[in-house]
């Protein structure tokens, strides 16, 4: 009996238009999104997404990198000998790769002096200067100079240089214990971000040291709010849609509509659930928040962490606007389903867009005022999470924030109106399948 029931359940489900739309439509939908992201990334990366292809200039006062340059020739020689005579030769490069890690290719430019590198940096020929001071072997210090600090801007460059410095040491004959410790130490601890002293151009065109922890924390708090928006949406959208579907299935909706205006009912549902979502976040924060907050607060003096309540407040406003915007669309579209399952399938179309900015976080952070960042920030389906990520960089001009907020408010108003129309029709409709053309017709003719 179970088998028969299962078979018919399967048949009924796969024949449902909503199932077919999601099954075949969703991959197309996701493909379009990914295609769009790739097109934008490939086509405009060079000027929109600064920092993704970092051009590195190196000033090496130790000469270790010159030793390291021989590794490619060594590897070639190894290969040739293995092929010709079947004998092994143990070059330093091969030893290094066997002991530690694969050596990344070197595409950096070498400069004799810091001044020469600075000129290249100023002219835009390079994006970052890695300076290896003469006392590197004793201190392990590396200095990194950039025009402007970016979260994902110059993480890899010092790492690659440090790898070559270790290789250079290995290549050099007669290593001291301290030098061997550096080579091995890299394997154990890795080249930590903190070991690199980072400078950016400040007032008076002078390099000033950057407190990376402070910068990262300053980014993390507002960016965390963006993440919470997505998380809260994911969690609560199900409740929102299920609630509407249940009322429709229970046929409570018609009585409700005789008591309350459709837009009131819709907004009431969205706001009620927004409140529940906020309460949920508050409870989570209350349960888990004190620890990082106390640590951050207590350590803020020591690490120079700067609280940015303005940014957090604006992020919270975008959070609320975003939740209401997505919530309104979810209720409208969710009301078209014939049951909870169908309604949740329709809601997937609203749940995907807010994820896009998260997928593009590197591009948004590296160029918060680039063409892509602005376009996503002004397009309502992506606006709220995009703006929260952009705000986290602290570089978005006020007019840009205001414009985005105005567009989002207007879009939220429009979303409520459109969803109210969909809800008015969808909530009272029974047993009819939906597709985009039919939805458009209903909107137009209702």
């Amino acid at each position, binding site marked *: 009996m179970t088998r028969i029931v299962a078979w018919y359940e399967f048949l009924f489900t796969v024949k449902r238009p909503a199932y077919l739309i999601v099954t075949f439509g969703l991959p197309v939908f996701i493909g379009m999104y990914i295609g769009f992201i790739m097109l934008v990334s490939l086509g405009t990366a060079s000027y929109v997404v600064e920092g993704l292809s970092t051009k590195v200039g190196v000033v090496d006062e130790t000469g270790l990198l010159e030793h390291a340059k021989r590794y490619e020739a060594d590897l070639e020689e190894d290969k040739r000998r293995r092929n010709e005579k079947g004998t092994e030769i143990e070059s330093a490069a091969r030893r290094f790769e066997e002991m530690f890690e694969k050596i990344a290719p070197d595409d950096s430019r070498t400069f004799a002096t810091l001044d020469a590198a600075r000129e290249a940096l100023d002219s835009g020929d390079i994006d970052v200067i890695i300076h290896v001071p003469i006392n590197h072997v004793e201190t392990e210090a590396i200095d990194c100079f950039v025009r402007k600090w970016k979260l994902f801007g110059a993480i890899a460059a010092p790492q690659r240089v440090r790898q070559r410095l270790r290789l250079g040491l290995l290549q050099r004959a007669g290593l001291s214990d301290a030098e061997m410790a550096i080579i091995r130490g890299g394997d154990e601890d890795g080249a930590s971000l903190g070991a690199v002293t980072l400078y950016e151009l400040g007032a008076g065109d002078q390099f000033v040291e950057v407190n990376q922890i402070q910068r990262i924390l300053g980014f993390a708090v507002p960016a965390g709010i963006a993440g919470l928006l997505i998380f809260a949406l994911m969690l609560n959208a199900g409740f929102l849609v299920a609630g509407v579907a249940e009322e429709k299935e229970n046929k*409570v*909706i018609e*009585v409700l509509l*005789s*008591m309350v205006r459709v837009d009131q009912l819709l907004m009431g549902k969205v706001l009620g659930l927004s409140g529940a979502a906020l309460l949920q976040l508050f409870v989570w924060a209350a349960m888990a928040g004190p620890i990082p907050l106390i640590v951050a607060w207590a350590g803020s003096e020591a690490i120079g962490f700067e609280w940015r309540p303005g940014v957090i407040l604006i992020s919270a406003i975008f959070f609320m606007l975003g939740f209401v915007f997505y919530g309104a669309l979810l209720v409208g579209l969710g009301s078209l389903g014939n049951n909870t399952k169908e309604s949740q399938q329709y809601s997937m179309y609203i749940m995907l867009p807010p994820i896009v900015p998260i997928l593009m976080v590197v591009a948004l952070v590296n160029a918060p005022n680039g063409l892509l960042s602005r376009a996503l920030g002004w397009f309502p389906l992506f606006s709220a999470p995009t703006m929260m990520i952009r705000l986290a960089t602290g570089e978005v001009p006020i007019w840009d924030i205001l414009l985005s907020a105005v567009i989002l408010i207007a879009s939220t108003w429009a979303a409520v109106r459109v969803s109210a129309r969909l809800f008015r029709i969808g909530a009272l409709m029974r047993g009819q399948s939906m597709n985009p053309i039919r939805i458009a017709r209903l909107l137009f003719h209702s």
Partner: protein
Amino acid sequence: MTRIEFQGVSKSFGGGASRIDAVRDVSFEATGGETLGILGPNGAGKTTIIRMLLDVFRPDAGEIRVDGGLNGNRLDTFRRRVAYLPEERGLYQKRKISDVIEYTGALRGLSRAETRDRATPLLERFELAAYARKKVATLSKGMSQKLQILLSVLHDPDVLIFDEPFSGLDPVNVRLVRRLVLEHRERGKLVCLCTHMMSEVQALCDRVMMMHRGSRVLYGPLQEIRRAHTDYQVTVDIDAAPEGLACVDRVERVENSKNVYLKEGRTLSDFLREMAMAGRTMRHMSEGLRSIEDVFVSVAGASRVSVSGEAK
């Protein structure tokens, strides 16, 4: 007293080939203190009429006026004065009855205390008091039905719109609802009754509007409609057969009486005059009117219904 007017109201759904004209140029009015029966076969447009009155749908053409003002402008206040019991009943199955009452009261603009004060006697009257703390899902179909009727009149509405209020009720509860309707009418409230139970229509309605395929096909006071749709029929207790009289169309024997059907255009006076002239006597006579059920069946069952045939 509340007054509702529909003037040339039309409503369609969809477009192009899939367009459905749910309501076509419908006009009617109803005033407080009367019961209006909205009748018609399934798909006639009755529910669309009600949904437009409640502003769930907006009409494509025509005007809906409440107390002389356009419906849309007065809707928020009008909603507070309306009780609506839809044909497809729905309740939050997982909630407690007291919570549902409280939520409904709040939506109707009542305070908690007001809701409690009004709900208590109604719960007693509908024999639901013992269930107040229980979940809706524990109620039987009939009890759920009564709870919905209770919820609809909780705020002492001026207008009651009941769509098939008797379905699912046992005869005792049918009486209960009937009394409720009559009480409200006597208190000057307007009752709109959509039902297929013609006995209830005949017992409760002052005026009826019958719809067919979105159009109004009958409208007017109940008795006038019945009279207008009656083949003139006289039941007589008579010795001699009335055949042969000029005004008589046919005669059917029913037990000890005879049903005499008069020719079109002939009246009771014609019959009496011809009986007297023919020297025939009768012991008893009664005028027969068709029941509203017969009228409904004949109009709704007709394959082509002409609006010109409606009674005004």
